[in-house]
Structure formats: structure tokens, C-alpha cells
């Protein structure tokens, strides 16, 4: 189900080719640098994701077809993680997004430690907020 897009397949191959943490970190930074970030004017308190020590903003454009999330983060590595998250769900419907196993996605990328419960980087909080926004968009 939910076959990977070609870009996602490429990302997976790139990350799986990393032997060392330095390579993974540099790759994450590259992905973060490519992220099309939420514009400044939308980085308002209402769009802040609660539970992140680092500030992260997340917006779901409900009018877009297919669904479109936009994010912004102050930290560059987190920005990379967010870019990889969006890459996995881009083009999918709300129901399909809900069915994606994102924990598994980050595990395949070799980044599962970034999702551990003690991590305060906010990726978990972003996932949570994403589910909330999707649930509302379906109603």
C-alpha cells in the first residue's frame, strides 16, 4: 500500500547508503535546506506545534488537492526530518496519510532514534498535530 514516490525511493536509497552518522547528518541538512518553508507571515502562535522545545509551525492547506502541509522550524536538522516526513505523505489523501506507518519510514531511513519518546526535538509532536489537523479536515 501507499507506494513510495520516486523521490521518496531516492531518499531512502541515499539514507540507506550512509555508513556513518556524519553522512546522515549532512544529508539531513541538505533535505532541510530544500524544504519549502511556511512563509514568515504564517508563523503565528496559532500554527505553533505544542510540545516542541524547538519552535515548529505546521499548517494544512485544506483547499489544496491533493492535501498540502507546510512546516517551518528553527532547527536545521529538524527541518530535514520534517522534509522527509512531508516527502513520504506528499500527494496522498487524508485517509492514505493516516494509513502510512511513519515510524517505519523513519526506521527505514535509519533515523528511528529521532522518534524515541525522550526526544524533545518535536517530531513526535508534529506527527500528533498532523493527525489532529487531518481528523478535522475529514469532518
Amino acid at each position, binding site marked *: 500500500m501507499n507506494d513510495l514516490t520516486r523521490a521518496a525511493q531516492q531518499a531512502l536509497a541515499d539514507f540507506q547508503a550512509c555508513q556513518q552518522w556524519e553522512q546522515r547528518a549532512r544529508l539531513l541538512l541538505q533535505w532541510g535546506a530544500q524544504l519549502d518553508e511556511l512563509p514568515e507571515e504564517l508563523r503565528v502562535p496559532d500554527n505553533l506545534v505544542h510540545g516542541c522545545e*524547538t519552535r515548529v509551525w505546521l499548517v494544512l492547506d485544506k483547499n489544496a488537492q491533493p492535501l498540502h502541509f507546510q512546516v517551518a522550524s*528553527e532547527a*536545521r536538522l*529538524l527541518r530535514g526530518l520534517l522534509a522527509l516526513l512531508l516527502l513520504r505523505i506528499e500527494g496522498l489523501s487524508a485517509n492514505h496519510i493516516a494509513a502510512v506507518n511513519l515510524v517505519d519510514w523513519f526506521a527505514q531511513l535509519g533515523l528511528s532514534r*529521532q522518534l524515541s519518546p525522550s526526544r524533545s*526535538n518535536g517530531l513526535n509532536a508534529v506527527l500528533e498535530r498532523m493527525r489532529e489537523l487531518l481528523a478535522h479536515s475529514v469532518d
Partner: protein
Amino acid sequence: MFLPSPWRQFFPGILAFAEQQQVWLDSAATAQKPHIMIDALSQYYQHGVANVHRAQHQPGEHATRCFESARNTIADWLQAAAQDTIIFTKGTTEGINLLSQALAHHFQAGDEILISAYEHHANLLPWQQLALAHGLTLKVLPMDADGQLDIDHAITQLSARSRVLAVSALSNVVGRQQSLQRLLSAAGKAGVWTVIDGAQAAVHQRPNLQQLDCDFFVCSAHKLYGPDGVGVLFVRQRAVTALRHWQFGGEMVRQCDYQQAEFLPAPLGFEPGTPSTANIVAFATTLAWLQSLDSQAIVAHEAALHAALLAGLQARAMQIIGTPNCALVSFNAPHVHHADLALLLGEQGIAVRAGHHCAMPLLKSLGLPGALRVSLAMYNDGADLQRFFSALDQALEILQ
């Protein structure tokens, strides 16, 4: 950087981390435990357990003797006078919550509570919430650029409406030892109750509560190489009757009817329910062990490590918060988000803390979203710092 720690061998947790290539530089959050503490816990349980203060049987007497002897050992370590009181709590946080509630009946709207700008949330929120509930004024005493509390200014802030002065002796963010004697003395003369948060300070300098002229002193066992879930609230004799009972239940009662009750005085009246006996006994064992060591050598070792840490960070042009002189350094790398740096240090097995360090108002006032903190303990050595600096250099190379 050859700074071996002769005490490292006594801490199995540090040795276990070393096998996993982990360097523990987060002791300001919690400290690793000496095997003598771990053995004491195990021994206490292996000899059979009983409730304290309640039973007539022999195991109960034994448990009570161990428990009260632990109280004496801890009082002795704090260099408390015989007439002062030691109340066991769950930790510093509970100790301060206890005080804020047990003293609350003395306060009226318009009264003042004074804290410093660098307080941990544990020594801010209980007072803030008390102030909000009772219409009190919370005065925040400023620190200078070094992180030193401005004592002259603080003294001018004492007024006829001041009721409590609650300050930390060593900030968990700035790492600067405060000289509070003059302020404590002025507050005492003004009839203000004085509370010292010793959670950080007690780890690096054995308290002398006959010299430090406060009414109340709180600290936590887990930061002091002791077990989790135990704290100490020291109460000077002159202040003990000011406290009103705050939590109710077993063991703290003298006389109980359906409609009313009379309670025991401190300390037992403030220790409702079954205490954390094994942990308290093991904490006393830990302190007795610490006392048996060469405390000057420990202070000198930690000072040498701290100087090396500071020098290394300065050499790399890190932005250091204040002018730390003890135990820890908080810093940021220029143009690097602390979360990015923390992530890459974590990848390399370096355990440091990143974020607001439970002092959000302080970080906000410094205009920082957060900071990294490296904190030291007696078991750290020069090799730990070397690994930290090499990881820092690698991380910065990637991020800058």
C-alpha cells in the same frame, strides 16, 4: 588534559556508560550512583522490611532505628544544629511546594515574595501560584551579566510587606555560586523567612547550616549521588512552628476523630504515609561515604575540570551564559541552534542537556530560545572533556 578521577571507579553507572561509548555530562540533572549506595539499598531490602514508627514488633523497631539514624546522619552532613529539624520529602520540588503551602496561612494580599531571576521552575512556580491565589506580589531580584545576584539591590527590595525570600545558592543554568550571607542577614532582620534552594549547590560544597543563616534549606538526594525520590527539608528551630500541616494521612496524626484531628509536630507531622525508608537509609549511607572522602580533593578536581571546560569553550568562541564558576557551563555556538548541536552530540554519545533547563523566564530574558549545558561531577575526568570537545568540533564542522 590529564585529569583522572580517583572516584570514578566507585560508580558502576559511569563505567557501564563508558562501555557503551556514552559520556555522562548531565549530572546537574541527575548524578550516577556509587556502588555503596546501590549495596545499601539491596541490603536494606534483603534484611526484611517493616513500616517505621508504627509497629511494636522487632522488625518495626529495627526499621525505625535505621530510619531515624539516617535522619541523624543527614542532619550531621548538613551540619545542622541539634535543635533543628530534618523533614523528608520526595525532592527539592516537593520541599518548596511544602513550604509554599505550609506558610500560606501567614500571607495577606499585598504581601511580597522575593525570588531571583535565575530560579529553576521548582523555586518559581510554587511561589508564583501562591502569589496568584492570594494576591501576593512576586518580586524578581535581578542578576548581573556574570550571573551574580545583585545583593545591594536585593536588600533594597526588602520591605515591611516582604514575607519570604527564596533563592538558589547555585543556578542550574548559570553555574555561579552566590554569596548570600549579607542578603540572608538583612532578610532575617526584616522578619522575612528565608529559603535556600540547595539542589545544585549541595552537590559541590557540603552545606554548613550553622553558618548559612537561612530558615529553610532544600535539596535532593538523586543529584547528590543518592537514590531517586528523596529530598530533605531543613527547618531551623525558630521557624518550625510557623509551618502548618499540609498533607494528611497515616503516621502524621496524634489524635483522630471522624470530625477532627490533632497532628504530630515536625518532622513526623510533615511526613504522612509510609516514607521511602530504603532510599532514605541508602541516602544516609551515601552521605556518610562522601564525608569519608577527601572533600578538598573533590572540590579541587571539579574546579580543574570546570576550568578546562570553560577554557575549551572559550577557545572555540562559544557564547557562554554569565561567568560560571562551579559545576556547569551553559552556552550556545554562534549561528547554530542548540537543538541541532544537541542532536549531533547525542549521535556521538555525549550526554549533555539542551533546552531551557526549567528556567524559561531566565532564557527569555537573555533572549535565547535555549542553550546547551555541560555539567560535571566528581566521577568525570579529563578524557570525558576530551571526548566532548572532539564531538563538539565534529558537530560544528557539520553545522557551521
